[in-house]
């Protein structure tokens, strides 16, 4: 292995690992505004990682995916959500289910699980993809954990976006994978719809809260 290859591998590894760390940061944010800052950081690290993959794989298409991650997910969506929570007066504390310590432990367990699952089966894959996939699975699982530990609709959206960032990481790490840009556009459309959906909830004024528990209670009793 040449030194240059070693360095490119290390940087890819560092950025992917950074994404996992930021995912952990998401788990213990107890304020919506802070959570949105972390979401922006998450997408920013992702865009760096995708751009680095574009560089080392010599795949110019991936720069577009990196651009989408930076412009749309790191700046536009967090800003839109931020304005929304200020207008709705939600910039206060958010509740979390279970304690932070327990959630962090669960997150650690999920990372261990994904490494344990992915590393043995990817022995034949190239090392960059191998690490990326394992770390990407960690990000996906922590994203799921974020979603299930939050009750607020906006923080569930944030959890989903971090999950989706993990999938983007996996897709870009798989060298030569086609349709990555198209898929990232498709996901952006999905997220735009989710954000608009949250927005619609508010402007329709059917709910005075975006707390998912309140949405559940809209079902009325048992039917």
């Amino acid at each position, binding site marked *: 292995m040449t030194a240059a290859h070693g360095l490119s591998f290390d940087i890819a590894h560092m950025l992917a690992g950074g994404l996992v760390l930021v995912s952990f940061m998401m788990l213990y944010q107890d304020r919506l505004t802070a959570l949105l800052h972390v979401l922006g950081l998450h997408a920013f690290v992702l865009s760096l990682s995708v751009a680095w993959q574009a560089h080392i794989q010599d795949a110019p298409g991936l720069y577009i995916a990196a651009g989408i991650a930076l412009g749309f997910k790191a700046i536009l969506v967090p800003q839109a959500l931020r304005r929304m929570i200020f207008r709705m007066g939600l910039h206060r504390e958010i509740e979390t289910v279970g304690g932070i310590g327990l959630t962090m432990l669960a997150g650690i367990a999920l990372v261990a699980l994904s490494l344990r*699952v*992915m590393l*043995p*089966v*990817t022995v*034949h*894959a190239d090392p960059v*993809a191998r690490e990326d*996939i394992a770390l*990407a*699975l960690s990000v*996906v699982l922590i994203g*799921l954990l974020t*979603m299930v530990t939050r009750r607020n*609709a906006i923080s*569930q959206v944030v959890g*989903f976006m971090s*999950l*989706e960032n993990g*999938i983007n990481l*996996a*897709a870009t790490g*798989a*060298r*030569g*994978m*086609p*349709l990555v840009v*198209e*898929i990232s556009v*498709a996901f952006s*459309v*999905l997220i735009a*719809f*989710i954000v608009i*959906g949250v927005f*619609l*909830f508010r402007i*329709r004024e*059917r*709910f005075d809260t975006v707390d*998912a528990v309140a*949405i*559940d209670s*809209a*079902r*009325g009793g*048992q*039917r």
Partner: protein
Amino acid sequence: MPDPVTAILLIPLAAAAILAILPDYRIGAALNIAACLLALLCALTLPWHRPAGGDYLLVDDLNIVFVLLNCFIGCTTSAFSASYIGHELQTGRLQPVHLRFYHAMFQVMLFGMNLALLANNIGLMWVAVELATLTTVMMVGLYRTAEALEAAWKYFILGSVGIALALFGTILVYLAARPSIGEGMDAMIWANLLAHAPQLDPSLLNIAFIFLLLGYGTKVGLAPMHAWLPDAHAEGPTPISAVLSGLLLNVALYALLRFKMLMAANPLAIAPGPLMAGLGLLSAIFAAFMLYRRRDIKRMFAYSSIEHMGIIVFAFGMAGPLGNFAGLLQMTMHSLTKSAIFFSVGHIAQVKGTQRMEDMGGLTDSHPVLGWGLVAGVAAIAGMPPFGVFTSEFLVVSSTFARQPILAVVLVAGLLLAFGALLLRLTDVGFGPVKGPAGPVRASYIPMLAHFALVLMAGIWLPPALVVWFQHVAVLLG
């Protein structure tokens, strides 16, 4: 002559563009039917005139079955929807501007489903399933009531997570294929994947299949990922309930079957059958219990859809030529019967002004065609002869008895439970004293009757050509 595959995809797209700007809802509804009919006609030519696929599209024996079913039910549902929405407009639940959106979305949804079925590329298939999901989410929330928005939100979040997991599985399949097929688009083309299936990395394929099963399984409505399904069926417009049950679940199932074929063709990968059979059986039993305490009529039939998807996935999981044949037949019968049930339920709920079963009664007296239609539908879906569902369920059970008697006993218990629940409700709703408003109904009965005629015919006499076709596909499915 233009390529029928291109036509099947372009007609809905073009229709959607026109419908989005067409102001009059009557013309819109008529155009909606016309576009569906045109697509159906194109689909009907597929068995005889099969265009060569390419890197993106593929026509084979398996997906022709799905595309035909899709176009047919799309067509009958558009006819039902035309009579349904007029009433919704009168009662003020919908505004004309909603209907423009509704018709355009209906066509985009059909486009998404047809694209998913015809895709030769697992990435494209994923994008198409996502498109179909998004459009149905918007239609479920069409009424803008608290309940409808809640249902749409739940469907959205659960569906998105499912779809995200399916994409992760798709990426893993690509990684498994890359060493033997090479980098780039080739390694995502379905035909290549199947041709190289024995050389794919088995351990990566195993993990990929778990993600795909969970991801697409969410969209199939398998327990325990089914939570979105009853809400989405109950709160959306009834034509959407009909296409959700009749078509969208099938599309997700189709995606699952494609990957199952891949797994089955790789000798070193885990057998996909037991996983699917287990989840399917769990869903069927769970849904059978859940059928008992339903009060909302659409919600009840939604649980019945979970039950039937469970049976179908179970049949495909048992595999073998007989199991796959039974699964295919059960799927076809369920789609036809369940959408017909929703056609009649839609009109009934409009007449009664409610979906609560307590407030309905004596339908066979007050509205003979709708009432007896519902009775026939429930009898068919519960698996009574002479309807086609009986034939297919009998095949599922008998083929299981031959190989796994214990599983067959469990399955039969589930079927009987569901049978009991459905008949219990049916006697209240269909017979007895008339409850609730009994005004006249302006309904088009043709879609419902056409479906029942087909289901009845399948129960009495299956055309030999269809049997041969299904047998052939069953062998393909492995």
